[in-house]
């Protein structure tokens, strides 16, 4: 898939390359934005910003970094800028759909939210991304640019702490 994107870039077919990248990464980037911004609607706007930046930068992509790594760097920086520039309430839950849906916040959700909020920032980010990214350590490691071992270590500590809080 990545080779297909590289081929399109060599032919300067940037719009088609972007379509391929959207197919591959849009959901992952969106979930990272949700994890960082905790607001699905705002996360969708930021995901648009990310892919707009990627589209603008595609002609200058030099191929030295893997395209996923390059894209995640843009995504992470864009999300961090959004977090810094806006004052987000650090509350949960984050599991909101950006499409109209029934409100499903329950006492259990609130309890989970409070426990997650009590975790150290990195553990919270890892555990949140792990579940949002459908339990892929590899995806979390790529998104956060951390070794898989480090992700697992944060995840283990977070699980032990959460078990203590939730039982």
């Amino acid at each position, binding site marked *: 898939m990545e080779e297909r994107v590289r081929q399109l870039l060599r032919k300067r077919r940037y*719009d088609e390359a972007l379509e391929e990248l*959207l197919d591959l990464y*849009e*959901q992952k980037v*969106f*979930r990272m934005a*949700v994890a960082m911004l905790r607001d*699905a609607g705002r*996360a*969708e706007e930021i*995901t*648009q910003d990310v*892919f*707009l930046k990627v*589209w*603008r930068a595609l002609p200058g992509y030099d191929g030295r970094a893997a395209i996923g790594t390059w894209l995640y760097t843009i995504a992470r920086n864009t999300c961090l800028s959004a977090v810094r520039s806006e004052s987000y309430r650090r509350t949960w*839950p*984050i*599991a*909101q*759909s*950006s*499409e109209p849906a029934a409100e499903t916040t329950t006492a*259990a*959700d609130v309890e*989970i*939210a409070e426990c997650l909020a009590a975790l150290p920032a990195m553990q919270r980010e890892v*555990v*949140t991304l792990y*579940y*949002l*990214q*459908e*339990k892929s350590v590899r995806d979390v490691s790529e998104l956060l640019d951390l070794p898989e071992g480090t992700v*697992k270590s944060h*995840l*283990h500590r977070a*699980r*032990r702490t*959460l*078990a203590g809080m*939730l*039982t």
Partner: protein
Amino acid sequence: MTMDCRTAQEQILEYLDAAVWPAEVRAHVPQCQTCAAFLQVQTSVDRRLTTALAAPRLSTAFRPALRRRMIAERPSWLRDTLPDILHFTGWSVATAAGASVLTIDPAFVLVAGAGAALSSYVLLTVLRSSLEEL
């Protein structure tokens, strides 16, 4: 070979799914109340987090909205050159009208009109680029 509880619990954290446990963990957990309880708690936490942190999906409006933003940013030859076309067309019409109405030499009017069109174009270009830098 027996396994200590700490190692077993690390393995449980590593693989919550019993199907992928190493054989030693599979043998240890049913015989150890502490680890069996640990597994039960971890499975429950995992289930609760899976429910609470369900992966959201992008809305169906995402790609159309992104495409609109891309189109708005795409360089457009007509949009970029339309002010220049209007500028020179306006001056040409004014010069032609002046040459036909005024009683002075039409050649002079044409030269003056061309000069005015060019110098005002240069002024506008400078003004436009300095505004873009702001």
